[in-house]
């Protein structure tokens, strides 16, 4: 029986070069690493989603609920972009991890992305519901001085007793950063806009539609009102607008005094007396 020359050549090379199969554990570890990467990416993505939901829904004004949905510019700018970036990066890593699993290539990229985003979303909502997002946000703020989200700044702003809320139309003055706020028949207020003090960028409608009503939130300085937030009236829901009106008209409900958290305790049950032995 004759054998093919190629067979002899290959077997000779295997023998002469001492080529041996790569051990099985190497492939097992490699596969496990891809699954692990997918799992970790999913967890990071879920945590980022939970933090996004936390910032959107639990902020001082409940931006997700309050700001008009079809004008999402404000709430998009109000979330920490780091978490949005984390969702994107973790999704990419998760998709790659899934794609490299033994049968992952059978799914198109869009399906893998959808699977990843759905799982991250579901897990993220669960984590948010469990309070993990708030815990993580608090921990990050406590450990990192760099971490201060717009949402958190808004929350601090809403707690500041010196903060005032004004409403009216803004008209430009010769100085491009100084505006005049005219509210109804009342006196006009000079607004000194310092872009680096604003929590979110100046709305584009400020100059394009000067007759639009604006909500200006900030503090009164020596000569000028210094805004921290300027929002077009039509970007606010009626509910949020009414809450802000309370402040504008000085009818903001007084705060409740801080009371320590008292966990609900059930009354102690008294154990029934042990039966006495019958004598």
């Amino acid at each position, binding site marked *: 029986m004759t054998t093919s020359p190629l067979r002899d050549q290959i077997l000779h090379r295997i023998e002469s070069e001492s080529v*041996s*199969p*790569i051990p099985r554990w190497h492939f097992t570890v490699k596969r496990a690493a891809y699954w692990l990467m997918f799992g970790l990416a999913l967890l990071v993505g879920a945590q980022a989603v939970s933090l996004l939901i936390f910032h959107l829904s639990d902020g001082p004004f409940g931006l997700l609920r309050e700001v008009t949905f079809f004008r999402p510019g404000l709430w998009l700018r109000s979330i920490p972009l780091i978490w949005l970036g984390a969702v994107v990066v973790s999704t990419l890593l998760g998709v790659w991890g899934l794609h490299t699993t033994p049968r992952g290539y*059978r799914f198109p990229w869009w399906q893998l992305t959808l699977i990843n985003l759905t799982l991250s979303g579901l897990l993220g909502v669960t984590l948010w519901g469990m309070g993990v997002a708030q815990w993580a946000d608090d921990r990050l703020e406590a450990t990192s001085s760099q971490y201060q989200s717009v949402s958190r700044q808004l929350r601090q702003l809403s707690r500041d007793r010196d903060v005032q809320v004004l409403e009216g139309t803004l008209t430009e003055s010769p100085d491009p950063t100084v505006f005049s706020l005219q509210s109804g028949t009342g006196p006009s207020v000079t607004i000194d806009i310092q872009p680096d003090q604003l929590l979110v960028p100046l709305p584009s409608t400020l100059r394009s539609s000067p007759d639009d009503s604006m909500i200006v939130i900030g503090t009164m300085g020596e000569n000028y009102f210094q805004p921290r937030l300027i929002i077009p009236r039509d970007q606010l829901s009626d509910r949020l607008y009414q809450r802000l009106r309370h402040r504008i008209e000085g009818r903001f409900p007084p705060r409740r005094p801080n009371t320590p958290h008292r966990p609900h305790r059930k009354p102690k049950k008294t154990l029934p007396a042990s039966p006495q032995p019958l004598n």
Partner: protein
Amino acid sequence: MSSPSASPKPTDDQLVAAALRDAAAFGPLIERYEQPLLHFILRSTDVTLEAAQDLLQESFLKIWRYLNAFDGTLSFKNWAYRLTRQVIISAHRAAQTRGQHQTVSVPDLSLFDLPDSTDLPSQTDTTARAQTVRQALQTLPPAQRQALVLHYFENLSYSEISDILQRPPGTIATLLHRAKATLRPQLTHLQLP
């Protein structure tokens, strides 16, 4: 005692298991897939026969090194095609880096004979047709060309090609559709089925 001719041929899985115990048992696997893989290399690349044989040898060495990765989820044949394709891609990239480009030698054109070549009036026509098909195939991007070769020359299903090219079956269908659309104007005069 039964005669050797009556004994059933060992399956690929059995041969792989035997090869992991004894390297000499890898020989039957080489003989079994030597020709299909050589044809695949020649049809999906522009290399000479000698270069194709080198690639084939590299492919079998890779198969040998990765033998423990074969877990039976794919057939050995499809798995071998997949590794061979990876060797082709690596060689192609290396050649691009070096700026080399090897063309196929004339005798290899017979590998592109079409299934109905026996109906053609003369061998000259067969060679001419093969030449035309080969030139047309060279105009295709590598992925389209490999999908076309695997489907029409190796008679593999979309699902099997999906396993070899590691792309979704839907993408394989798209690749084949595009490849045929590209080839149609060039091969219309051949009256291919």
